[in-house]
């Protein structure tokens, strides 16, 4: 699969479903009437008989997936992250997570950049919610190639996986064919002054922030965590050891998400000065992506500014 410099995860999602299905007859896709948004329609065209329309009824969709999984199918649920996580949480808990059934939950349009739809469609707490669920693997790949690799790994994993995806094209970070190991973080940049930890497509913004800091003569360390659960605690501890100050930045509320995971790990293994950057415990709104990132303080410039603030704080 050749990937252009900017690519939308949803396109890769649709195409990778086809690829996985070509190789594995157990794969089915369940759609919550959003296939032309999520790009599950690419799969629907290629494998009409394995595309199961489930209407606008997310609770039932989760249950149907569970039933299919007991027969040995590997169902992928596809809808917006906001609904995949919150409209069927009790179902995800009781018939997917508790029996640890082999169901993949793909949350499209995560974060704030949801194509002008606004707060009902923005998923600002999905990581916090899914991370708290026993037996759930939580993945948030950074770009197209990593989405592909994460899907391959998710499909090979024998239990429930939540996959957090973004709507709009974002910069390529990785080469095609990268290996994805669930639970392993990736150091994107070595440095000694400050560690920046990020996940999902927001990692591209964090990488840009590192460039800005480097242009100022600083040496940021950048750790990308495409798996939020299970957390790569060793990588987090290493980042803290190298730098003594950790900025976590995410397109997610600052409560309970990647920041929470890092705080829990470091507090227990290596107490380190932290700064948690993300959506400041508010709901979002509609608007163009640039304006939203600017208003909610999530641009590379904002991240760099947070890093400078952290650097200015006295270290304990």
């Amino acid at each position: 699969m050749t990937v252009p410099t900017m690519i939308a995860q949803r396109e890769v999602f649709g195409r990778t479903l086809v690829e996985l299905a070509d190789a594995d007859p157990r794969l089915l896709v369940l759609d919550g009437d959003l296939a032309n948004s999520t790009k599950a329609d690419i799969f629907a065209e290629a494998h009409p008989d394995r595309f199961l329309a489930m209407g606008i009824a997310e609770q039932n969709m989760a249950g149907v997936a569970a039933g299919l999984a007991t027969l040995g199918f590997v169902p992928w649920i596809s809808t917006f992250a906001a609904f995949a996580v919150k409209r069927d949480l009790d179902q995800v808990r009781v018939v997917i997570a508790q029996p640890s059934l082999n169901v993949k939950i793909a949350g499209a349009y995560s974060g704030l950049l949801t194509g002008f739809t606004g707060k009902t469609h923005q998923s600002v707490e999905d990581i916090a919610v899914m991370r708290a669920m026993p037996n759930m693997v939580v993945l948030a790949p950074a770009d197209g190639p990593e989405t592909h690799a994460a899907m391959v790994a998710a499909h090979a994993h024998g239990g429930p996986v939540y996959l957090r995806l973004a709507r709009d094209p974002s910069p390529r970070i990785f080469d095609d064919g990268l290996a994805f190991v669930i639970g392993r973080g990736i150091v994107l940049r070595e440095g000694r002054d400050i560690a920046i930890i990020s996940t999902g497509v927001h990692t591209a913004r964090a990488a840009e922030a590192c460039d800005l800091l480097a242009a100022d003569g600083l040496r940021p360390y950048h750790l990308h965590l495409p798996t939020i659960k299970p957390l790569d605690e060793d990588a987090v501890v290493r980042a803290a050891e190298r730098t003594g100050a950790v900025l976590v930045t995410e397109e997610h509320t600052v409560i309970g998400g990647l920041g929470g995971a890092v705080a829990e790990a470091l507090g227990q293994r290596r107490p380190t000065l932290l700064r948690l950057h993300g959506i400041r415990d508010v709901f979002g709104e509609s608007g163009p992506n640039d304006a939203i990132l600017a208003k909610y303080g999530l641009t590379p410039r904002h991240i760099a500014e947070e890093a400078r603030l952290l650097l200015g704080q006295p270290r304990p």
Partner: protein
Amino acid sequence: MRPAGRDAEGRVPATPSIEELRTIAREIRRLVLTSVHHAGAGHLGGPLSAADMLAALYFHFLRLDPARPDWPDRDHFILSKGHSAIGLYATLALRGYVPVDELRTFDAIGSRLQGHPDMTATPGVDMSTGSLGQGLSPGVGMAIGAKLKGASFRTWVMLGDGEMQEGQVWEALEVAARYRLDNLIAVIDHNRLPQYTWPDFGQRGREFPVQNLAGKCAAFGWRVLACDGHDMDAIVRTFDGATRPDGRPTAVIAHTVKGKGVSFMEGAFAWHAKPLDDEALTRALEEIDAQTGLSAPPAGASR
């Protein structure tokens, strides 16, 4: 030239005439098209299918006062199919809740006119919606609350037919019947299309999002009325019937066409939500205007 009754700010006051309601509906469609074109985003099929009923509700049936959006005794309205927000905003603007020009901020950052209705942002929006299937339940709460208070207002909820697949709607229908909420009216925009629909693969065919709506609502203990949701006469007659209580909540099943008024959008699921380019806008407005009988578009509408 302004449509009859339009004031200097472009607002249309309430009017009981069928002909004027038709004009207003066409004006709502124009504003939907121009606003979505301007925003470069937004839904089209749903707002266009709902336009005639929104006109009838806001300019004939709802007891309201645009100067006092929080007037406790107002009739309450919930757009459960919240993705049709721009249809509601166009209506609210024409009715005087917000300036018509403000429609140009639809979907913009900081706007009072959010992609989906937000009761904390827009005057006249009685409940936040956008996650489908949720609107009827707050309507049930308002109707129960009215009974508890001895208030005489009615609560109207407009739902999509695709939305009727959400289980929560049936929970709400059940509870509404049990509480005998004859002050609650659900208008179902039965345009036979949701978003991606049930695809046209295999033997299943591209089916309606939901079958036998009338039978289902009746089985849940509701009075069921039906009408052509684009025939203003029929709408007014049927809504009028809906406001005469018979001890049960009432469902009006409005048979509609998704994308109504623009030939290339009608019944085309791809036009559920899609940016509108200049050329498509021009063609669409021409079609609407041909139906209006207006000699020229009202000033500002096609900017």
